């Protein structure tokens, strides 16, 4: 029993040290979403049935100012979402428009998804208001 506890304690210390070493070595660059086109491509990679809508020849949607998240409008009316998580991206096609809350520097989207419950979109006040209106007008 004592031996097992010692192994568990040693393992836990090793876990913390390994994660620290990973950080000290500078591994894991932070991902940013370069453009709405890149966001649209990420959603489509996630789900091939999603085709980004094109407005004026450009992917239609909103890219957060910090490049950490993007909302992409689909050609069929669905919404695609991309979020940076560490050095990778996470994408979703939303079954319905998300609940939106105003935050200090943009909007917080609330999703019915325990694996991605909240997404912050850094936006100017004007862009945040415009997006809120647009999402509110969706069926």
């Amino acid at each position: 029993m004592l031996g097992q506890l010692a192994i568990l304690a040693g393992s836990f210390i090793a876990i913390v040290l390994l994660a620290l070493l990973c950080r000290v070595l500078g591994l894991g660059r932070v991902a940013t979403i370069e453009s709405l086109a890149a966001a649209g491509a990420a959603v489509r990679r996630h789900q091939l049935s999603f085709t980004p809508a094109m407005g004026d020849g450009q992917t239609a949607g909103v890219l957060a100012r910090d490049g950490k998240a993007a909302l992409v409008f689909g050609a069929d009316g669905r919404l695609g979402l991309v979020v940076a998580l560490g050095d990778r991206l996470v994408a979703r096609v939303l079954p319905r428009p998300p609940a939106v809350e105003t935050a200090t520097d943009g909007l917080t989207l609330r999703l019915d998804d325990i694996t991605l419950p909240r997404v912050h979109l850094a936006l100017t006040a004007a862009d945040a208001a415009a997006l809120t209106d647009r999402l509110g007008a969706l069926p």
Partner: protein
Amino acid sequence: MPDLPDPVTLAIPAFVGLIVLEMLLVRATGRGAYEPRDTFTSLALGFGSTVSGLIFGGAVLALGVWLYRFRLFDIGWSWWAWGLCFVLDDFAYYWFHRTAHRVRWFWASHVIHHSSQHYNLSTALRQTWTGPISLAFVFRLPLFLAGFPPAMILFCGGLNLIYQFWIHTEMVDRLPRWFEAVMNTPSHHRVHHATNPRYLDANYAGVFIVWDRLFGSFVPERADEPCRYGIVRNLGTFNPFVAAFHEWIGIARDLAHARSWRERWGCVAGPPGWSPDGSRDTTEIIRARWQALGEPAE
């Protein structure tokens, strides 16, 4: 009956040393990838899996020992019994693992192992917390009934797990052809962890890839299509508790909304992604969509 050590516990220092070595190699070569929080989550899940094993392992072993009383043969401890036990245990692992990807009840436990978008040695330690709850051990029970000594079966299972550690790496490209033909390798297992439509639900092997070749689940890695690791709906958080329990919560929610016994059965025993109205994606739906587009490489 000899008192055998737990080989996995003995291997922990080697696991740690090899992870450090791989991190240094990633840093030096730019090949492969690590992310500190992802690594922490993987290792924390491995830690939790060990705790879960301490809690439930005794009961599982007791069941095996009880079944061993009704054994068909007295196989004993000869050298050939060790070899046969290792191969049959790997065969049982293949079928466990295949079921774990095709039946949501077992997937809910196994998904933990696939929940990282990274593929490195730390991913190998991203192990389930809920294996005993999902009854994953039933696949190994025939070995007890056949008459292999319980300690031998557990030892072989431990060796199998240790073998699977080193194949979780992008540092090794292809190994000699004879080795790739018989053994599970980094290349084969990268495909297993990939979500590209071409690679979904393939290469279930533990140690010997021959099971996949025999039972039609083998897919080779292609140079023109790099693996995209993770799950079909990747986690939007590094929280290890979400990784450990999210699919169980999903099953509970779907059961609460099910309107018939057919739907209840489907959301427990159907393939991952099954839904009554087809609104979610199974491997079959994803692959059909990809085939309709002419099977583009990603």
